[in-house]
């Protein structure tokens, strides 16, 4: 017999993601999923951003990596609660791994949660983790062709950070070409240019995060 159905391949992940989101909603926590290629500057961005946020909000971080706890150590050095999720070779985080990570964090009283995904421009984009907002980091060092090469990564982003802008003058990165290609797949996302050496754009980033609707509510 033939069975006609329409079932999402990732339905199990999507259900776990919905559970995560509901739980975070109940606790009044806004969650950001940070995605980008390896070396795009996701951890450096958090290092620049967290000191500004932690005075105003209770912040925590889930660090996804294939191996090592190096990134988690960098976050812990800022005196921000952090849990390392090691995927043991897996190329992306999924909602179940995040669920396990959440169980190791003190969630009560928390306002903001950042989940730094595994450095990879392809696979992580497929998996909803239960986040409220998606931040994609594209570094100048990677090249301006990445929005065309990895459209799914950019398609569902709420914010796109162009990082390492201090390198613009040393590379052939064409900013207007990158922005033009981003707009082919995403006409809505906010774009912020940053540089963690001079902290350019970090105030703007902090304001964007602080403008989230769940924040400021009791």
């Amino acid at each position: 017999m033939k069975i006609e159905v329409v079932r999402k391949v990732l339905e199990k992940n999507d259900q776990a993601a919905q559970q995560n989101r509901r739980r975070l909603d109940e606790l009044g926590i806004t969650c950001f999923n940070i995605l980008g290629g390896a070396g795009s500057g996701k951890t450096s961005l958090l290092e620049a951003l967290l000191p500004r946020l932690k005075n105003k909000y209770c912040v925590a971080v889930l660090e996804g990596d294939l191996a090592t706890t190096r990134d988690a150590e960098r976050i812990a050095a800022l005196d921000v609660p952090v849990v390392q999720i090691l995927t043991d070779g897996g190329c992306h985080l999924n909602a179940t791994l995040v669920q396990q990570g959440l169980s190791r964090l003190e969630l009560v009283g928390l306002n903001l949660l950042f989940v730094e995904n595994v450095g990879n421009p392809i696979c992580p984009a497929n998996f909803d983790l239960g986040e409220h907002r998606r931040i994609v980091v594209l570094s100048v060092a990677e090249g301006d062709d990445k929005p065309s090469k990895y459209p799914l990564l950019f398609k569902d982003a709420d914010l796109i950070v162009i990082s390492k802008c201090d390198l613009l003058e040393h590379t052939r990165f064409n900013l207007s070409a990158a922005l033009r290609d981003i707009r082919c797949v995403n006409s809505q996302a906010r774009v912020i240019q940053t540089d963690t050496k001079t902290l350019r754009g970090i105030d703007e980033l902090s304001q964007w995060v602080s403008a989230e609707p769940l924040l400021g509510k009791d």
Partner: protein
Amino acid sequence: MHEFSLAQSMLEVAVSEAQRVGAHHITRLKCRVGDLRQIDGQLLRDAFEVVREGTVCEGAELDVEKVRARAHCSRCERDFEVCDGDWVCAQCNGLAQLLEGGDELEIISLEAEVDS
């Protein structure tokens, strides 16, 4: 290389469908995969061959139907299918924006042998 975990997820969907209809064997699965997912159809079939072993899907064929994204060119108001990541409108050379589709990832049919 996310094909393997996607093949695993496809198997889980197929197994639960088999239980739902009381099938003892699934012989064929058909899925729709959007181009923007950047999934290699052959790799997906290879991965499925590995994960299906010893399950109700043992020996089942996996058909992969690729779906292209549709884009809209605002300069000449034309809609077209995006091929190979090319967003340039063939009519006016303008750059088009994503209209719909390209991110499909679903099982759309199964062929099953049911206990009589």
